[in-house]
C-alpha cells in the first residue's frame, strides 16, 4: 500500500484518473438524492432548455427532462453492471483458465476449442444479438451476457498465467505432499498470480464500461424509463442541431469515466509489472 502511494506521487495523471472515478462513485451513491429534479420528471414548459435555464444546470431534452439528474441517475446502472461484469468474468475466467491450464491434455483441448468458437463472434455483436433476442434487458441479463462474451479473453489470460506458475517448485512440492488439486490451484498458485490478474481485471472494467455504454446506445441495454448514458446519446441525436447539450453531456460523462478508468488501469499495470 505504501509502495502504491509512493508510485502514485510519481504519476500525477493517475491521481487525476482516480479522482474522477471517486467523483462518479460518489455521484452514483448520493447524487440522485441531491437533485432538484427527478430523472423522469417531465417539465413540458421547458423542452430543450439551455444549460443553466430555470435551474436545469445542464439543460433539458426534447421532453423537458433534466439532463443533469438523468446523467447522475444513469451513473448507477452503468457502474453497477460494469463492476459486476468485470468481477464475474474475471472469476469465471480464473476458474476455467486454471482448470484448463492445470490439468492440460484433453480438458485443455476442449477448453481451447470452446474458446475458439466463442471468439468466432466479436463480443459486442454476440452480446447485442443475444440481448436483442431476449428483449427487455435487466441488470442481471446484461451482466450475464456481457460476462460470457468476455470470458474467452479473461480465461486465456488466467490460463497463460497459470502455465508460467505451474512449473515452479512449490507446485511440485505441494503435489508431492499430496495436496488436493483444488487446494494447489486456488490456495497455492492463485495468491502468486494476483498481479497479472488485477491488471486484467482493471482493464476489463474499462472494456465493460465501453461495452455497456455501446449496448445502451444500440437500444439493447436497460429499458426506459431507467436513464442510460448510451441511450441518452442516441435518443437525443435527432435534436443535435437545436439542443447539442442533450447529446454532448451524456457523451462527456461516458468519456470522462472511461478515460479515467483507462488511466487508472494503465497505472496499475505499470506499477504491478514494474514490481516484479
Amino acid at each position, binding site marked *: 500500500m505504501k509502495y502504491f502511494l509512493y508510485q502514485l506521487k510519481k504519476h500525477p495523471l493517475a491521481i487525476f484518473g482516480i479522482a474522477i472515478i471517486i467523483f462518479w462513485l460518489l455521484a452514483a451513491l448520493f447524487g440522485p438524492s441531491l437533485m432538484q429534479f427527478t430523472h423522469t420528471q417531465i417539465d413540458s414548459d421547458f423542452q430543450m432548455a439551455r444549460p443553466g435555464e430555470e435551474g436545469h444546470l445542464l439543460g433539458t431534452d426534447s421532453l423537458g427532462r433534466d439532463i443533469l439528474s438523468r446523467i447522475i441517475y444513469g451513473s448507477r446502472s452503468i457502474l453497477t453492471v460494469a463492476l459486476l461484469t468485470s468481477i464475474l468474468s474475471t472469476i469465471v475466467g480464473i476458474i476455467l483458465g486454471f482448470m484448463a491450464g492445470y490439468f492440460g491434455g484433453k480438458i485443455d483441448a476442449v477448453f481451447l476449442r470452446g474458446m475458439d468458437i466463442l471468439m468466432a463472434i*466479436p463480443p*459486442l455483436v454476440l452480446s447485442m*444479438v443475444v440481448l436483442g433476442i431476449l428483449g427487455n434487458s435487466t441488470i442481471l441479463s446484461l451482466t450475464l451476457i456481457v460476462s460470457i462474451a468476455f470470458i474467452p479473453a479473461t480465461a486465456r489470460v488466467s490460463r497463460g498465467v497459470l502455465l508460467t506458475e505451474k512449473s515452479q517448485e512449490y507446485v511440485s512440492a505441494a503435489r508431492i505432499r499430496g495436496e488436493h488439486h483444488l487446494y494447489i490451484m486456488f490456495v497455492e498458485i492463485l495468491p502468486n498470480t494476483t498481479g497479472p490478474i488485477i491488471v486484467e481485471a482493471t482493464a476489463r472494467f474499462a472494456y465493460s464500461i465501453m461495452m455497456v455504454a455501446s449496448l445502451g446506445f444500440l437500444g439493447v441495454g436497460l429499458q426506459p424509463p431507467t436513464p442510460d448514458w448510451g441511450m441518452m446519446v442516441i435518443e437525443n441525436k435527432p435534436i443535435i442541431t437545436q439542443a447539442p447539450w442533450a447529446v454532448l453531456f451524456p457523451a462527456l460523462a461516458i468519456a470522462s469515466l472511461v478515460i479515467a478508468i483507462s488511466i487508472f488501469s494503465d497505472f496499475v499495470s505499470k506499477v504491478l509489472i514494474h514490481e516484479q
Partner: protein
Amino acid sequence: MNKTLLFILKKLGSLLATLVIMSFIIFMLVEIMPGDVAQMILGQSATPEAVSALREARGLNDPVLKRYGRWIAGVAVGDLGDSIYMQGVAINSILWRRVGHSIILALTAFIMFVPLSIFFGVLAGVKENKLSDSIISFFGLATMALPEFVSGVFLITIFAVQLKWFPIVSVIPIGESLFSNLNILILPALSITFVMFGYVSRMQRSSMIQVMNSDYIRAATLKGMPRSYVILRHALKNALLPTITIIGMNMGWLFGGLIVVETLFGFPGMGSLLMIAIKTRDVPLIEACVLLITVIFSLSTMTTDILYSFLNPRIRLQGGQR
C-alpha cells in the same frame, strides 16, 4: 512448402468446424426468441387457422434439427432465405449491397488509421519518455477507451453542426450510389479511426521501444549508421510484426465499431441492417447477418495467423499455436 500448405489446410479445417458449430448455436439462439414467425408474417389480426396453415406450409412444425438442416443446406448453395420484415424479399437482394457499403467504410477507416497509428507509434517509441511521446501516448490512451459513438458525437458537433463541412447523417439519397456521396464516409471512418489509433499506436510504440533496445540495433548504431537509416531499415521491419497481429486481433472491435457507427450516422451498411433485423425480430435476416459477420471475422483472424507465421519464421513450425 508442404508444411505451410498443411498448416493452411489445418486452419481452414478448424475454421469450417467452428462455422458449423457457430451456425447451429445462432440457429438455436434465434429459436428461443419469443414470438411466432407465422404470427409475425400475418400480423396480429390473423385467424389461428391461417397461422397454423402458414406454419405447416413453411415447415415450421418440423423438428429443430430438420429445420436447421434445411437452412444450412440453403446457405451452402447461397440461398439465405427471405426477410420477414421486408415482406418476403430475398435476403440476397438486400444484404450484399449493404455489405459492400460496410466494406468500403471499413477500408476507408483502415486507410486512415493504419498509416497514422504506425507513424505516431514509431515516433513515440523513438522519442521514449520525451514530451512528444507523452502527448501521443495520452492521446492514444484516451481515444482507445472512447466508444465509437462518443467520439462520433464529438466529431459531429465540431465538423457537422459547427463547421458544416460534412453531413450529420450518412444516408445515400434514393437512386444514387455511395460513390457519388463519398463525403458521408469521412466522419464515420474517423470515429472508427479514433479507437483503432489507440490500440495500434500503443502496440507500435512498445514494440518499437523493445526493438530499439535490442543488441542488433545497438550494433548498427555503433557501426556508425545514420539514425534514420537504422530506424527505417533495421528497426521498423521487426517492430511491425506485433502491430500486424494487433490489427488482425482488433478486427472484432472493428466489427462492433461498424455496427455502432452505422447506427449513429444512419449509414446503410451491414451493421445497421443487423440492428434493424433485431429491432423488427426478423429471424432469417438476423441469422444471415450474424453468420456472415462470423465468416468474415473468422477469415480475417485466420489470415492474421497465417500472415504472422509467414512473417515470423520462428513460429512457423509450431503449427500455429498461440
